[in-house]
């Protein structure tokens, strides 16, 4: 197979030359790096990556192919995929196809063969950058111009692009053999408390985990009003992860504001940010975000350290948080950013990181149990 040249150009003029894989078309977006060493399939299909081109720092990607079970949404969500070396073969008993074919099938372009470490260092030192990936136009200057013309992530509401169009129920369970923790007693499906999940780009594994904790789940579009939510008579509300700038998702912020205090609420990632804004705090854009599966987070109460999966470009500004009302519960030990908080009086807590893992460690799994307790027993 003849390899086709491809170029990744950043808005500040940095050029990375490699070869094309996946679907051959141009793509643009914010370039971010992810340090997970496995789990590329989950990353590709995580709707939080909408608008972003993801570079994997681990150089060997595609080794175990693609399987049916590890999808976090129905299709790859990244704008493009950037790697050092695409595996020419697939080796895994669950695999049903190759990464390259999967991307091609979903019209997602990729570039391989570039110095991904140089790219990572560049983003680390200079902050995330907008970029253009092309295998048709190889003039770096033109590509840089096009990258400069892309809209910045700040102020961008990408939730509307990934949220579901109509409400649906979710009953899928964790895959046999891969459920954790092992000691959870499964309850009968009937009479389970209903949780309404706002879909800002929700990962399937969050739903599987909520399901495992004995909730029945209805997923609703992010634009669903508080009033409509309350007509379902839910026992709890969940705000999901998602892409883009949380501050731009004003409709969901308003809905959240209305719901706070009326019903137990749990938020993850973008949900964490949106709830914080609804509570009067501010969010800001991180220099290069947190994208990986090895972030140490300390639980300020127990002082226990958990290793967590993270994927966010924005964070909650701790100085803007009303401490009389909100207790910050978790901090990132690498850069001391806010990783979680709880409302002191109202049933509400949220975390910035991903207790559903997928990909990543299972250390923060207790948060789903905490949500169950909040909904069922009223303690949080």
């Amino acid at each position, binding site marked *: 197979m003849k390899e086709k040249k491809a170029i990744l150009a950043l808005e500040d003029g940095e050029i990375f030359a490699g070869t094309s894989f996946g679907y051959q078309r141009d793509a643009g977006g914010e370039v971010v790096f992810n340090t997970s*060493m496995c789990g590329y399939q989950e990353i590709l299909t995580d709707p939080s990556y909408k608008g972003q081109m993801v570079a994997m*720092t681990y150089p060997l990607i595609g080794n175990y192919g693609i399987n049916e079970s590890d999808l976090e949404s129905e299709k790859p969500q990244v704008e493009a995929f950037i790697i050092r070396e695409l595996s020419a073969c697939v*080796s895994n008993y669950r695999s049903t196809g190759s990464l390259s074919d999967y991307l091609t099938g979903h019209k997602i372009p990729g570039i391989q063969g570039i110095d991904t470490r140089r790219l*990572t260092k560049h983003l680390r030192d200079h902050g995330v950058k907008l970029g253009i990936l092309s295998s048709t136009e190889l003039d770096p200057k033109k590509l840089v111009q096009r990258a400069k013309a892309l809209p910045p992530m700040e102020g961008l509401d990408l939730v509307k692009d990934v949220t579901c169009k109509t409400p649906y129920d979710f009953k899928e369970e964790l895959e046999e053999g891969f459920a954790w923790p092992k000691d959870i007693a499964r309850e009968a499906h009937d009479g389970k408390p209903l949780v309404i999940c706002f879909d800002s780009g929700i990962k399937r594994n969050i739903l599987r985990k909520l399901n495992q904790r004995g909730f029945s789940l209805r997923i609703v579009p992010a634009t669903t009003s508080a009033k409509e939510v309350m007509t379902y008579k839910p026992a709890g509300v969940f705000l999901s992860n998602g892409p883009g700038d949380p501050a731009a998702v004003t409709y969901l912020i308003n809905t959240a504001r209305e719901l706070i205090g009326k019903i137990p609420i749990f938020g993850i990632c973008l949900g964490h940010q949106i709830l914080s804004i609804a509570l009067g705090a501010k969010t800001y854009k991180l220099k290069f975000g947190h994208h990986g599966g090895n*972030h*140490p987070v300390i639980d300020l109460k127990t002082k*226990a350290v958990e290793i967590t999966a993270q994927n966010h470009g924005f964070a909650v500004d701790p100085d803007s948080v009303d401490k009389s009302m909100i207790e910050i519960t978790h901090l990132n*030990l690498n850069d001391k950013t806010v990783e979680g908080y709880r409302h002191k009086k109202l049933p509400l807590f949220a975390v910035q990181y991903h207790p559903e893992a997928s990909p*990543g*460690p299972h250390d923060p799994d207790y948060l789903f149990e905490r949500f169950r307790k909040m909904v069922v027993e009223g303690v949080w």
Partner: protein
Amino acid sequence: MPKRTDIKKILIIGSGPIIIGQACEFDYSGTQACKALKEEGYEVVLINSNPATIMTDPDLADRTYIEPITAEFLEKIIKKEKPDACLPTMGGQTGLNTAVRAYETGVFEKYGVELIGAKYEVIRKAEDREAFKKAMLKIGLAVPKSQFAYSVEEALSIGDRMGYPMVVRPSFTLGGFGSGVCFNREELERTARFGLEYSMNHEILVEESVLGWKEYELEVMRDLKNNVVIVCSIENFDPMGVHTGDSITVAPAQTLTDKEYQRMRDAALAIIREIGVETGGSNIQFAVNPKNGDMVVIEMNPRVSRSSALASKATGFPIAKFAAKLAVGLTLDEIPNDITKYTPASFEPAIDYCIVKIPRFAFEKFPGVNSELTTSMKSVGETMAIGRTFKEALQKGLRSLEIKRFGLGADGKDQVFDVKLETRGKLFDFIKNAPDDSELRRKIRSYIGTAREDRLFYIKYAYYAGMSTEEIHDASKIDPWFLENIKQIIDVERGLIDAAETVNLTETKESTKELIRLAKRTGFSDRQLAFLWGSDEKSIRELRLSLNVRAVFKLVDTCAAEFAAFTPYYYSTYEDENEAVASEKKKIMILGGGPNRIGQGIEFDYCCCQAAMALRELGYETIMVNSNPETVSTDYDTSDKLFFEPLTREDILNICDAQKPEGIIVQLGGQTPLNLSASLEEAGIKILGTSAHSIEAAEDRDKFNKIISKLKIRQPDNGIALNADDACRVAAKVGYPVVIRPSFVLGGRAMEIVYDEEQLRQYMRDAVEASDEHPILIDRFLEDALEIDVDLIGDGETFVVGAVMEHIEEAGIHSGDSAMVIPPHSLSKEKVKEIIQKTELLAKELNIKGLMNVQYAIKGGEVYCLEVNPRASRTVPFVSKAIGIPLARIAACVMAGKRLKELGFTEEIIPPHVSVKESVFPFIKFPGVDIILSPEMKSTGEVMGIDSNFGQAFYKSQDSAWCRLPDKGTVFMSVKDADKPKIVPIAKGLAELGFDLVATEGTAAHLKSQGIPVNSVKKIAEGRPNIADLLKSGTVKLLIVTPVGKGPALDEAKIRSLAVMHEIPSLTTINAAKAALSGMRAYREKGVTVRALQDYHAAMKRDRISNVRNSGRLESRHA
């Protein structure tokens, strides 16, 4: 959690001599632990019998005891030092087992010493297979079906029920020792019998075989707050059935999805918590069924290990250092990540490269042993390589291995069974014809069905022969992902071959550049390119540089570049950006020794580390280059910059290009860097210390002979031969017996003593291949001569002897295998003086700047020079510790331009105490091999016994070498005729000490005739009951068996080999027997005491000062 203040003094147990399964990784961990605990303000007491370690450097621990690592000596040290706590997890299985024994005999309780790092119960639970299995089932994890057996009969009945194949694993053994896969009843019976004998608690596990499953390891750390992190995942290239120490391993895991990886991670967390390892690192092994993902737990080591050293080097996360800190109560989030400084250690490293570890074997040293790889470890060392792809790392690893390969074949060294592909024409023809050769394919298919040292190369040949990945996987069970990567290397090679006819090496064409860049990114060396393109390494390098295809250096930083890194630990690759920017400082580069092998081991790492420390103190930036992940030299703390790279001309020049050091030190890393000196100098690199010219003069036989005759120093008559007839002529001229060997070898490789022409012709036929380039050296062998080693240091002006060492065994045994004593105990002062004079003459003539080692033989009052090595020798650390002067450190300063006078070392020091170095052998790993010592070095490690007199020092050295001399019981003797008169006084002495004596008929008759009470016993061939029965019954506590002939078929060889299996000490020379007698006598009369190295050295210093006062000058040599 703050660190504990209720403990102040901590005892660390080292791992003792280097043996198979326990090598310098424990020097690395122990050294880190010493440093870490001292950094936290604790007083550190260390016990380790191995003088070649960096950890026993008197500057590292506060109190260093070079004493036998036994419960007995541990108690003596505890009694003397009264430590508050003992850290047993740094010294490998030896450390753990010694701690277990000491605990069980109540030593810790008696003196109020707390075990930290791992409690007794935890060690038992992790190490006792039954307890471990129960614990696993309790937390819902699967283990291979298994049952314990305490007798061979029990094992067989389990085997009959469970079906074959199956695995036998003895409890409490080292490096999987005694374990094995059994394909039938007969094999099970044999393995079970062996395993039961060697298990500390006579227990074996008979286990369902998961042969062919994928094997993984996780390195786990836990702190007192129950925080757990996984430092690294490792996937084995070789599937289950091969000991992980003998497997090629890769980090991180390559073929696990996140779901599978996290399931394994969850299991690891559950295991470390269930077993109850409160603090520190553990290694957990898993097997995964490639067909359905079923996962079973194989085992856990509740301590740092070979794998944890590898994981530390692979990630930049120093497991042992942190484990030591966790043991005193710090928690992971309280320890900063060394590399990033601003982020904590409570995280899991993300790596952005691929690590490949390849084991190094030494089967050529043990002819006749089964070289198939099994669950019992046989490799003697390992090398690690870092690349951005598996392909790059694999090829770098192969050229790091010191097996004269320059990658995965295509280097002129390919050999498919007996077909040598030493020219590219032959290789090209082979590639063309192999697919049509169905017989060859059949042979290869069968060959790769078994794991072997060279299986990797045969996988490549399998592809040459047209086998598909699927076929190769079916035969070898190696994961298709690894196989496909090998295939991609071949694809690139094919591209190079296709271009071979058309490529123009004098033109800088873009297409050539693309091709070379692709090859370099796939890990090809310049040597391979040169081979395939009919050129030479130098021309390829020039072309490559003119095309601007240059190696860049990337950082190992624990975090895949997410955070800025402050620790300069680099590897080379072919990418855009170079991160190793040369500093403005004055820089010296030190070349390490590469993978451990017999003949080149930890001693050289000790020298390199010492040099790095010394040069740092002198204000130089030190640059270390090495490829051995077990070592202290590859700890990023040791030097200012670390390059984890193969030690080849190409790779070193690449570093020099990027770093531009003032000069390079080649004489401390053993023969590997020394052999590179000429080619590096030719490339314009400055060799520091003794010049490349002098090095060549010492290594080249002709040039050396000229020097020797000029200096009027005697040497045994000798000559050079290029073929068998030549050899016979030379041998006849110098006279039999002769010592014969190939030139430029290490550790006496293929060196033999030959007694007649028939033997000589056989040697020339079987053992070596002589050629113009590789002549054979023939020396007259001096029978029964006394052998002497001298280490000297010089600065070109002043030459000072470090020590004169007298060998215990006579000449003819490789100096690396001999026991030695400082100061000489039987040599006259005049002879010592003569030897020193000769050594100084040689040093002056060679203009030695740095270290030199000379070997002599004394026969009939004449001193013969046997060998000169213009480099640090294996004995440098031993000497340094014996005389209290760090020779390697001083040598490094000299090489940096300091004078010995400035450094204050101008006179030899004669210690008032006696130091004995004893060698340790891997015979127990190679059942059936004769243990007779010869000019071919076989030992893997060494120990030191130090005390006020020879007897006690020798006694300790034997105890340290796990050959504890008995205090009572029966001694068996069988000596050759020539030794019969000499054995008499020894037998008399033994009888006086109350030993019962038995001997073979001839020996017994002679002893009886001298009036010594002795019973005779039958030889094995003479019927029963015989000596074998006596050995098995445990009556015999010591053997003295001197060799009549050579070869495992001999009766005496069988006896010796049997003794090894029953761990009964065997003495194979009269001199060793004599020394042992004096040892036993000293032990009986005086007992043994312990004394810290610091006390020995302080006493010497005091002596020297008082000598200065008394005589107005420093204590002079042998006055």
